[in-house]
């Protein structure tokens, strides 16, 4: 993979922000603001980023940030877009940033309403798979088998992680995609593609959380890559709600899920039987995804779009 056109001048995020070392959420925003900037307006719902952004008048970003209450992000984004239009700022890209709680749980209603109205902005969910800002309580994005502070050892989360991508696809929105911090070029391509479109665009970014997941801060990219290479977190995009396209196929011999689980202390209580069950689930989901994509890896082994 060739990284082109990189320059520090394009950075929209300042150093000295309030994120923990190795924060996937911080990196997500650094990548997305660099890809979509400089003419950006960000609405941020209650999440780790309410802290990371810094205490006003200090700020972590070189663009306007409008903080908003937890369940409101989907609707605030639509209002902001329409308000900017009313003032003639048609060229400003509006981005709503929410964590998994603000997307999968408390924010789902406003998100669904905005998607259904085809509000003209980009919704980014940085998913660290629990309420990390408040100390790792279970959300409906927490994967089966993970321990959280509301499912403490030896308990762990039961029930599947909500399939947000299929939920968003069912809204028939112009664009939806997953992205990984280990594949920044793929993420940037998707963001640029989304930016050129109109209407509601959704991106889900798996964002490792070292303190929550029980990993080293230096492992964030490694974990992001493992999530993809184990098929736990496939990289794909959905055009118009029904055209599914894989943007990256892992090596033909996929990495066993066990490697991904064993790299995180939040999964340390799962036994071999559970790991096998989780592996089966990942395989099952992968099969389902292949059917939706409708092609085999051999047919679409093309490089990601430029």
């Amino acid at each position, binding site marked *: 993979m060739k990284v082109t056109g990189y320059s520090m001048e394009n950075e929209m995020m300042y150093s000295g922000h309030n994120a923990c070392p190795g924060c996937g959420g911080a990196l997500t925003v650094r990548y997305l603001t660099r890809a979509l900037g*400089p*003419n*950006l*307006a960000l*609405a941020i719902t209650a999440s780790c980023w*309410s*802290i990371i*952004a*810094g*205490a*006003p*008048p*200090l*700020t*972590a*970003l*070189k*663009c*306007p*940030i*409008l*903080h*908003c*209450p937890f*369940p*409101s992000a*989907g*609707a*605030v*984004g*639509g*209002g*902001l*877009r*329409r*308000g*900017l239009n*009313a*003032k003639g*700022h048609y*060229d*400003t890209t509006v981005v709503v940033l929410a964590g998994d709680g603000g997307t999968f749980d408390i924010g789902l*209603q*406003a998100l*669904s*309403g905005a998607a*259904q*109205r085809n509000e003209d902005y980009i919704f980014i969910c940085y998913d660290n798979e629990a309420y990390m800002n408040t100390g790792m309580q279970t959300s409906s994005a927490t994967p089966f088998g993970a321990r959280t502070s509301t499912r403490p050892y030896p308990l762990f989360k039961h029930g599947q992680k909500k399939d947000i991508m299929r939920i968003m696809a069912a809204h028939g929105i112009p664009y939806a995609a997953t992205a990984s911090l280990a594949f920044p070029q793929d993420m940037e391509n998707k963001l640029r593609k989304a930016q050129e479109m109109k209407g509601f665009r959704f991106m889900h970014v798996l964002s490792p959380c070292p303190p929550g997941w029980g990993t080293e801060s230096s492992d964030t990219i490694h974990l992001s890559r493992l999530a993809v290479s184990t098929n736990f977190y496939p990289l794909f995009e959905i055009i118009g709600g029904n055209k599914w396209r894989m943007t990256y196929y892992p090596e033909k011999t996929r990495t066993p899920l066990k490697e991904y689980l064993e790299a995180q202390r939040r999964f340390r209580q799962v036994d071999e039987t559970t790991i096998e069950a989780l592996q089966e689930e990942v395989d099952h989901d992968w099969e389902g995804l292949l059917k939706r994509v409708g092609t085999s890896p051999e047919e679409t082994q093309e490089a990601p779009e430029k």
Partner: protein
Amino acid sequence: MPYELISGCQAAALAVQRAGVELVAAYPITPQTAIVETLASFEARGELKGEFVSVESEYSALSCCNGAVAAGARVFTATSSHGLAYMHEMIQWCSGARFPIVMVNVNRTVGAPWVLDPDQGDSLSQRDTGWLQIYCANAQEVFDIVLQSFVLAEELLLPTMVVFDGFYISHTYEPVDVPELEQSCEFVGPPKFKPQVAPGEQANLHGLSSGETQLQLVRKRHEDMLKAPATFSAINEKFNRLFGRSYEALEAVIPDGARTAFLAAGSTAETVRWFLPELKGCGLIQLRMFRPFPAEELARVVEKHDLERLVIIDRNCSTGTGGYFAQEAKAALYGVDRRPVVQDLVLAGGIDLTVDILAHAAEKGPESGLTAIQWGVDLR
């Protein structure tokens, strides 16, 4: 001046149209629905300057307004009862963020059980959220005050809630003097506030702040809100010059020699006004502005007319304490040398105020003590 026979809801919608609102986001609820439908019909006829957004909840209605007003757009929403309760978190956020949003709340009881009658507890339970609250007594006041509220909200940078009773005002058709579009637009003018979100300018709006910062913000907001009665007067002077009508935050109609006065807000004030000739020895104090509470104005009226008894009409009840208006009036009169007896006439559940109830309340004061609650149902 052209008079139109319209309902309170239609009067509100007409004022919103004439204020040149750029975004309306709303969700329907009885008895507010006619406002939403009228605005949508304006849009359908190409008579609405802004756009109408049908959102999926009241919470999202106010959230959508938040996003648009942050960008500098003039916005409006309307709701009632459970819808207002559902907005509660965003209601507080708006005033903290100093967003000059105008909202109409059409009073309706909050359940359980399901009740449609116009208890005022929906809006009064939001009294501490940092919004201005103005109560209207008829459809003319609804039109005029909704129009004025855009100027008021933008001048003070405070969200403003215009309140009127469900059905008694929302669904009753009255002749309303509706000024020409051009004149109305001239009165309101374009939005006067600075957009908070300015593309190209970095800003961390409403991000994590200290308690100390918040104290300063609360103090500023409080001090700014206290300017509201004077600002309202100034706006009404201009309004009067253009349209020949004006309003005050608190208005007293006390006949010579009257020592008892009814204090009322909303349609109950109109009822009292109509029946004053039959209520010998009684006057009316109409409370329009509830937040900020015109405490000094009330004390002045009581002292000037040497009132001995105030009958407070509370179509609401704060369980365990009594009517909201009575609480506020008592607090306002604490510093008055000769405090009147305060008689709290509670019409919770939004029950109808009849002339019988008024006559009984006027006749029969509290048997002991300085205050007492009379339950409206006992006086019929």
